[in-house]
Structure formats: structure tokens, C-alpha cells
């Protein structure tokens, strides 16, 4: 029932997702300077949002056949979903299953409650970021074979809350961080001047006013600006985007630098609390996990994720013992390839991770995971995961398993499609 509701939410999200900041500039801008500002800002923001590695769209790590050992410190901006089928996995001593997962942020629920478009820039920036700190996820897992040891499958419920620092951005100790932005501001400012000039030169062909100076002045008048915009063809819009893209590097660098400073002041370290419960539909042990996830950028394209958790394995069969487990996971993700053209996105992300589980009533278990995430398009990923497990308690042997899945992030898809 819950899954159906989430799928309905997913559908509503796709309906809502038709408008994005990149698309609203024509409607919301009264003058050409506002229009170019809006387009530059939206395109730079799109790149920052579409390449963020700290947002999770895969099923969480508690799911038996999850493609990840580590959970990221934040969920999707809006809604994400993933599908894993038995046919996408190798045979091993861990039984294959079909897993459906859905994750939804509190922001998604809040925007539905307010009947607002969650991708509207004004609403997105209207002090709503606190709603994106909280996300829920749900996974329904069905065994591939009735006789499998995971019995009737399981349902996994999870919640992630992104904790944050409380430093004031006006604090004197942070002034040096802002001063470091000066170089980027200068470059972005000059690049904007060039962009503005080139866009005006492109639009000049539609002007009845044949003096360039008077045309520019008239473009700051809403009525004249709208009349010029009404002539724009899709080729013109693509040409404008090409002009902006040619000068976007410094804007993106500035936006990233600002985001970096703001994040370092307000949100560092990016630490989340995670609660997960995996409830067996049969007699397999239930798992209750409470812990922390920490994400940090190591260098430009390398992201580190650390999970530290306490797991309680609640035995369901008489004679079986409960287990108390301390679990530590370290993962590194590296963006191996990203697009050079619009819309900007990651194409190949390589990840390596290791896990140690130490607990009562059993030997320690160690895992190693190598993962290749291929992106078919923005927001549609295909993680290919290889996991080595040192000990499967039910068999007493080690195990190697390949698992693939499809993962969808609605906010990334909608931004790319609308763009």
C-alpha cells in the first residue's frame, strides 16, 4: 500500500516536473538583463545539482541485495526510486530477489501540501532547504525462489536526517573564506559581460530599432523585450544556451565556490543520522540499524562516505540468537567521466568500499565492494556492483556476488527533460 502511494507520488512528481528554473526565465524576466541573469544562474545551478554525489537514489544498504555498502548522507531533493531484478544478479549463496525501492524527501511532501511546483526556483529557494534534509525510504523485496533462505522476502523502512552546523555566516572567523571568492567573482563578472553582449548581438536581428545602443536600452523595457522574445525560435534558444555555455565555466566555478563556502560555514561536516528497519515477511531475523553517515569531498572529483552504525539482528526462530553488531563502512566515489555538453551530468562514477561487521554470537564479517555506475541520462543510473563477503553465516562460506539495478532520481530527470 505504502509503495503504491509512493508510486502515485512519483507520477505526480513527473507531472509537476514540467517546469524548471531553466524554463521559467522567459516568463519571469521583465528585461534582457534579468533574462540573461536567470538563464546563467539556472544553467550553472543545474550543473551543480546534477553532479552532486552525496544524494542517494539506490536502495539502502540494509536491503539484502543492495548495490551499495554505504548510505549517502542525503536522500533525493524530491523523489527517487530503484529496481533490482533477479536476472540482473549472479547466482551465489545470497539468494536473488526483486527489490523495489522508493525514497521521498520531506520537501516533496511539503510542496504537495502547499500545492507548489517543487522545481520552481522561487519556492526551492524560499527557506525550504530544511525540508530537503529529511527523507524517507522504503524497499519491498521479493525472493526469486520460494525455497530461498530469505523466506518470504522483507520490507525495509528507513529515514535519513541531515544534521548541520549552526555557525553564523557573518562571523568574523568566516570572513577569510568569503575573501577567497574574489578571484572567482571577477572572472564570472567579466564572463557575464561578454555573455550579455553576445546575447544582445544575437537578438538584434529581430529589432525594428536599427541602432544597437537604442536597441539595448529598449531591451530593458518590458514590452519591447517581450516582443523580441516572441520571435525566438528553438534554434535561437539553443544558440543562446551555446553562448552561455561557452562562458559558463567561471559562473559554475563561482557558484560552486559560493556553495562551498556556504556549505563549509553552515553545513560542514555533512553528517546524517540514519535509521533503518528491515522486517522479514517470514522467519528471517529482523534488522534494526541506527547510525551515522558522513559525506565529504576529498578532492575535486573524489567523494568520501563513511557509515558507522549499530545493528540489532532480532532472531525470529526458537533457538536462534539475537546479534548486536558494530558496523563500519568506508566508500570512495570518483567521477571518471562527465559530459562536456549540455545538460552537464556524470556519465561514469567508480566507487570502492569496505565494510567490517563485529558483533556478538558470530564471527566478524568483512565485505569489499567495487561499483561502476553508468548514467543512461540525467537521473537514470545503472549501478553495476561486485561484492565480496568473507562469511555468509548460513553457509559458513565466503561469497562473491554481482548485482545490477536501475536507479531513478526524479528531480534530476525533470530538470534535464525540461531543459
Amino acid at each position: 500500500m505504502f509503495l503504491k502511494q509512493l508510486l502515485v507520488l512519483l507520477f505526480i512528481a513527473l507531472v509537476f516536473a514540467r517546469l524548471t528554473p531553466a524554463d521559467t526565465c522567459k516568463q519571469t524576466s521583465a528585461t534582457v538583463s534579468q533574462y540573461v541573469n536567470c538563464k546563467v544562474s539556472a544553467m550553472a545551478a543545474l550543473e551543480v545539482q546534477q553532479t552532486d554525489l552525496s544524494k542517494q537514489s539506490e536502495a539502502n544498504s540494509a536491503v539484502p541485495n543492495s548495490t551499495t555498502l554505504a548510505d549517502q548522507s542525503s536522500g533525493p531533493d524530491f523523489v527517487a526510486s530503484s529496481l533490482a531484478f533477479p536476472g540482473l544478479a549472479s547466482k551465489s549463496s545470497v539468494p536473488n530477489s526483486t527489490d523495489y525501492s522508493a525514497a521521498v524527501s520531506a520537501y516533496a511532501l511539503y510542496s504537495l501540501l502547499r500545492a507548489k511546483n517543487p522545481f520552481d526556483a522561487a519556492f526551492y529557494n524560499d527557506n525550504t532547504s530544511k525540508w530537503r534534509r529529511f527523507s524517507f525510504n522504503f524497499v519491498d523485496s521479493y525472493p526469486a525462489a520460494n525455497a530461498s533462505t530469505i523466506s518470504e522476502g522483507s520490507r525495509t523502512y528507513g529515514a535519513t536526517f541531515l544534521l548541520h552546523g549552526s555557525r553564523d555566516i557573518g562571523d568574523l572567523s568566516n570572513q577569510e573564506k568569503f575573501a577567497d571568492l574574489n578571484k572567482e567573482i571577477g572572472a564570472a563578472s567579466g564572463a557575464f559581460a561578454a555573455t550579455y553582449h553576445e546575447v544582445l548581438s544575437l537578438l538584434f536581428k529581430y529589432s525594428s530599432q536599427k541602432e544597437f545602443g537604442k536597441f539595448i536600452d529598449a531591451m530593458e523595457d518590458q514590452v519591447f523585450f517581450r516582443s523580441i522574445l516572441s520571435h525566438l525560435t528553438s534554434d535561437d534558444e539553443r544558440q543562446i544556451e551555446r553562448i552561455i555555455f561557452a562562458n559558463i565555466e567561471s559562473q559554475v566555478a563561482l557558484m560552486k565556490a559560493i556553495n562551498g563556502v556556504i556549505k563549509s560555514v553552515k553545513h560542514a561536516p555533512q553528517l546524517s543520522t540514519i535509521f533503518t528497519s528491515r522486517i522479514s515477511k517470514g522467519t528471517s531475523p529482523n534488522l534494526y540499524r541506527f547510525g551515522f553517515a558522513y559525506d565529504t569531498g576529498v578532492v575535486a572529483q573524489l567523494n568520501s562516505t563513511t557509515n558507522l552504525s549499530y545493528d540489532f539482528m532480532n532472531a525470529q526462530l526458537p533457538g536462534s540468537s539475537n546479534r548486536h553488531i558494530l558496523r563500519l563502512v568506508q566508500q570512495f566515489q570518483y567521477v571518471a567521466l562527465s559530459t562536456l555538453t549540455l545538460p552537464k551530468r556524470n556519465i561514469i562514477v567508480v566507487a570502492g568500499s569496505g565494510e567490517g561487521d563485529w558483533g556478538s554470537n558470530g564471527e566478524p564479517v568483512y565485505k569489499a565492494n567495487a561499483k561502476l555506475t553508468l548514467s543512461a541520462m540525467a537521473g537514470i543510473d545503472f549501478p553495476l556492483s561486485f561484492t565480496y563477503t568473507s562469511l555468509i553465516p548460513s553457509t559458513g562460506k565466503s561469497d562473491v556476488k554481482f548485482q545490477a539495478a536501475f536507479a531513478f532520481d526524479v528531480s534530476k530527470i525533470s530538470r534535464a527533460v525540461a531543459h
Partner: protein
Amino acid sequence: MSVALTIHIGHGYVALGLGDYLQYFLTPGGIAQGAFACEHRRPIVPINGAGNHAWHLITAGAPSPNAFLIDQGPGVYDAYVVSMLFAQAQAYKLRIISQPANLTVQDIDFLSNSPTDIYHQPLMVERI
């Protein structure tokens, strides 16, 4: 982008004869951070700190720490941009006055509630 503009006067273009100059006045609501730049000088001058900021764009005479010489000759258009960050300031007021005619070219208020916002306010300048 969530920067709200109140445009009292908002010309996009100004022509300056030899000896004419532009006066820029930027008043932040908070701590200003930004830059004044053109297509070829990135930036001409950074803008930092609380309090009012003022400078001149001149067509003749010697440049000084607050007076910057226009870098294009007659008949060439050059976009000059005032860039503003809203990380430490929620609002800015920008006034640009053409002298000696004493004509206000731009008088605009900018307001944002997002610390990650940036706004670039352009003005196309032609030396005639």
C-alpha cells in the same frame, strides 16, 4: 534565482562623450561582496566590506584607486557589470549617474533571501 529587483530607473545603454564619466554608488544592506568588471578586465575592481562603495568610470584623465579609465575607443560597445553576492548582504541599492549631465542611468534595488544568490547588473557603454 530569487533576487527581486525594484527598478526606479533602468537604462541598458549609455553613450559617453570625451570627458564624460559615470558615477557608481553601491549601498549594501549588510556586508557587500562583488566586483565591477567589463568584458576585457575581470575584474576592474573587487567590491568588499560594509558601508557605501563609490567609484567612477572615466573617459579622460588619469585613473586612480576609485576612477577607472574606459578601455574602448569611440564607436565600440563594451558591457560593464556590477556583480553582487548575497552571502553576507540581503540587499543592495545601485545608482549610476552620468556626469556632467547629472542624468541617472540606473537606480535599482536588489533583494534576496538566499545566501547563494549572485546577480550581475550590466550596462552597455559606448564612447562616442
